[in-house]
């Protein structure tokens, strides 16, 4: 019976949205990157071909993943988490991470594939592990210390207020946050926390802990808000006054978006990609989308994203079990948060954080991992009980 369930149809709307966004994304990478490639002395289609190849590979991986019975992720998640943590440690070791002038240690080079960020793995691993563990939350055996133990009273209280069960999650997150702060990689940390929080939230963890966690995070942010970070706030408030300190990119992004107007300059006709907007094929690709396709095009893409997110939650709601539901909630929320943060940065709604736009930003491994995540969602969608499909 289970085998049959696992062979159910994929959720077509979700699949179509993913394929559509990936397709548009690759086209936009072509449009946004050929100037960069040209000025780097490469073939103008260099980035396009690479991204295209990764997209095809990613879609294949997505298909394969979608065929996996996601229940295997329950036990796999432990190893995934261990692997992720090992990678996060490894990336800090000189010689493994890529050498960069700014001394940021986020990437590991993979021969033939380029580079990838262990934090991408960590995102999925955390969501998987948390989902797996939280799905069994109501059946978990309470920690029962001997009544004679001196700690039994404290543990009892902790258990009653619901803090005790959070301890393992908290420890995992603290470890990851600590490791990633060594890179440093604030945006990645933020995304992992967001994914984890979504799973915890959906699993029914009491809201006060989120309030507590959020305020702790805010406090921490204020604490670490040193020069580097506070400059970001200043740049955000008035990029024109800080052209040399990062304002340039945001100004150019605004020019790109603004000059797109309602209808845009037309596909391929961006002018800002000619060395004005730094790395237009990357984090700021949406600015080029806005410039070339206008408000209409940008809105269509936003709506596609919104539909993907909504469909994701729909799959979560209809998932066969809580694990599937939490898994999809985590991945969907992660995607939504990424989309929001990326576009909010590009439009200078929030201060700059280095978050790429799913399906669009150039980056082969990130795209493949993204599509693999979509494969997980599809895998869950295949086991939606027909009865639930009203």
């Amino acid at each position, binding site marked *: 019976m*289970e085998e049959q369930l696992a062979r159910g149809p994929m959720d077509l709307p979700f699949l179509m949205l993913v394929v559509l966004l990936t397709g548009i994304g690759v086209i936009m990478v072509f449009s946004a990157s050929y*100037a960069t490639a040209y*000025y780097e002395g490469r073939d103008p289609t260099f980035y396009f071909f690479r991204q295209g190849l990764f997209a095809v590979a990613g879609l294949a991986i997505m298909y394969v993943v979608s065929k996996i019975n996601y229940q295997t992720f329950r036990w796999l998640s432990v190893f995934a988490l261990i692997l992720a943590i090992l990678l996060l440690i490894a990336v800090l070791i000189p010689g493994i991470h890529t050498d960069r002038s700014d001394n940021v240690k986020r990437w590991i080079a993979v021969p033939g594939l380029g580079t990838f960020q262990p934090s991408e793995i960590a995102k999925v691993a955390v969501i998987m592990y948390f989902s797996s563990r939280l799905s*069994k*939350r*109501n*059946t978990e055996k309470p920690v029962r210390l001997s009544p004679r133990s001196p700690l039994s009273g404290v543990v009892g209280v902790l258990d009653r207020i619901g803090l005790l069960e959070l301890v393992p999650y908290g420890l995992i997150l603290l470890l990851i946050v600590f490791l990633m702060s060594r890179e440093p990689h604030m945006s990645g940390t933020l995304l992992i926390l967001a994914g984890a929080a*979504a799973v915890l*939230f*959906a*699993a*029914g963890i009491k809201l006060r802990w989120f309030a507590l966690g959020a305020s702790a995070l805010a406090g921490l942010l204020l604490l670490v808000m040193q020069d580097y970070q506070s400059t970001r706030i200043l740049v955000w408030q008035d990029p024109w006054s800080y052209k040399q300190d990062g304002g340039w990119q945001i100004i150019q992004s*605004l*020019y*790109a*978006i*603004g*000059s*797109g*107007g*309602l209808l845009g300059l037309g596909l391929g006709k961006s*002018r*800002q990609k*000619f*060395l*004005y907007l730094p790395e237009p094929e990357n984090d700021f690709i949406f600015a080029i989308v*806005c410039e070339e396709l*206008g*408000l209409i095009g*940008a*809105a269509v893409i*936003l709506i596609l*994203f*919104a539909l993907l*997110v*909504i469909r994701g*939650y*729909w799959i*979560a*709601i209809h998932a066969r079990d*809580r694990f599937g*539901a*939490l898994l999809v*909630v985590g991945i*969907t*929320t992660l995607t*939504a*948060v990424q989309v*929001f943060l990326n*576009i*909010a940065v590009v*439009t*200078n*709604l929030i201060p700059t954080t280095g978050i790429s736009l799913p399906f669009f930003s150039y980056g082969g491994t990130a795209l493949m991992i993204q599509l693999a995540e979509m494969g997980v969602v599809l895998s869950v969608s295949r086991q939606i009980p027909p009865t639930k499909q009203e």
Partner: protein
Amino acid sequence: MAERKHRRVVQQPDHRANRTILVRTLILLAVFGVAVFIPLFVRLWQIQIRDYDRFQELAVEQQTGDSVVAAQRGVIYDRNGEVLAMSATVYNIQLSPKEILACQEAYADDVKNGKEPDYPEPTDEFIASNLAQILGLEEEDILKRLEKTYSMYEIIAQRVDEDTRNEVLAFTTENHITGIFTPPTTMRIYPKGSLAAQVIGWVNPNTENTGAYGIEAQYESVLAGETGRIVTAKNADGTQMLYQYENYYDGMDGCDLELTLDSKIQSFCENILAKGIEQFEVQDGGFCIAMDPNTGEILAWANSPTFDANDPWAVSDPVLLQYLADIESGEYTKEEAYQKALAEGATTEEARDTAISAAESEVLYKQWANRSISSTYEPGSTFKSIVLAAALEEGVVSESSTFYCSGVAQVDGWSGPPIQCSDRDGHGTQTLAKAVANSCNPAFIAIGQALGAEKFYNYLEDFGFLEKTGIDVLGESNINPVSAGLIWDRDKFTNVDLAVASFGQRFQVTPLQLITAAAAVINGGHLMQPYVVSQVTDTDGNVVQHTEPTEVRQVISEQTSERCRTILEGVVNGGTGHNAAVEGYRIGGKTGSSQTLYGSDYTIVSFLGFAPADDPQVIILLAYNSPKPAAPGANTTAGGWYISGGNMAAPMAGELLEDILGYLGVEKTYTASADVLVPNLVGLDLASATASLEKNGLSLRTVGDGAAVTGQIPAAGASIPGGSQVVLYMGEEVPTDQVTVPSVVGLTAAQAEEKLAAQGLYMRATGASDYSSGVVAYEQSVAAGTSVDRGTTVEVRFSDSSASGEGL
């Protein structure tokens, strides 16, 4: 599987857990599926719709490169196609000390790496000494510029020609020097230098080569053309991306102008102006306008002092240079500027500097200004030609009218001393023609009175003295002459005003107004609008604008005009203008000596002339401002020239008109004493030779006693004055030696002729209509001491140096 079983067992909590997930997922859906997208949409709307204009503009501004396509400035030609002003490409020499430093470092590196370059080390000294030699600069100065190694833009020489530029380039390539550039620029060239400089104007290289004065300024937009623009997309490095986006805004080269000016006539005018200024010790320059009276075309327009349009800031006029020297030596001061500087707390030294620089700019403005359009003067007796025309047209006088002059005139309403005539003893009874020829003031007062104030004023208006001439040259004042106090108000034009106006005093007109009005007097009564630009053609040769002669109005009738011409011819033919007479040409005109407000020793002597008198081809107005009296209040200059239009301007005008008419190809028509052609007499016997010569009004002398004429002096075909003696050689050898021309200056006509004849030379007398004892030669066409062939005709110019009265 075990789990599933287990879950079934504890279904209640399962159900609750599922509900929690459902509710919370729905909350997440609402937040991340809907809510977070709303601010994004709002933000996009703000940027792309609300602030679209702003961002679009900023983006386009940075994305587009705007390069300028310079338009070639049009050429200015004279009426015969001679180039008066043209533009040429020249080059600036620009150093980039920064790049030169890099070049030197590269050389040093090569040496260090063992590569021994086969060219000299590009040291500062090496570069400076070579450039200094090529460009004619000081080596020191170039070295100083080279020391500014932070700079990339040091212009060391401006507007050098192509040859010099090529030398610089050859030097840099030969020695592998980088960092020396020769950006092209344009320069305005005036091939004829100072010719008509005030009319043509000049182009100021300090204001992006825009016209500063004259036609250059007036026709700035036409000449300059339209600077083209190429708007191209460029990337952030500034590299143009032509394939991406490109927009041409076509530039258009400037149009060419063809002026009515004739370079040749212009130079005649300028030469005669300069000549008179030197000869008469003229203190304040002068002007000379030549116009085609039938069309209003300005043929020449000379002003003095003048300057070289190629270097407008240089002062070359001797009078101005003297003035500057006087200021600097402290002989004069620019008192006003000096006192003002003192009042502002400057030291005497600083005040003196201020005064000097004030004088320098005064001098510059003086030489740049086209004074005969912008300044006014009392026309004096030249104006009588206008009064004559008006009176004849109105029929208040005629050729048979007579006027009595006692030497003074009484005017009703004038209580001061009686108005004097130039001839204190009076001209007695004179006909109209004689009164004009005498330039008799009392007669003109009578003519004016006969005309009446009302009609007189009408003619002032009709001849255009109360309006602009409308010439297409900058500088005509917009100020109404009445409100400026230059001419009386019609309502306040009293009888006394009428009396003085009748002989051209106490009111001011511009020289251009006067010549335009005078042209109407003699051309059949048509007041023409004077003009200088006859044609504007674009670069393809299409005529953009063609100026046709414009008649403003007919002022007098053809008949009246003809009568005026006849009477005015009498002025030159025996009247006050007799010094302007040219043998063989019929010249009409009117002399003038204008009093000025600058003091009794500042007289403007002028002559208004036209020729030929029966069919005027040209009208000129020549004036010298302030010939220097020998002593304050004296009537003559140190050179003995009587200060009056008749004695100064008239002879110059005669010479000028002769030049112009000759150039225009107007044939001389000789009367009795006029030149005749010597016939060929060789081979004839004496009788037939004598007959042949007599027929031509020539006498003869024979040498030798052969039967037939074997030679003659002058040769056949030579033109000699009528009545001259031809030497016939009867069998004798014709002498071929040359003779030396004697000086005849200061001699009377008879003496001069005798002296020349003694050398076997002939004299042709010009410049006077009768050669009485008061008339002496002041110039000869062949300089004394020159060796010439026997029988050559020497032209001798005479002038009546006897005193003539005021107002001539």
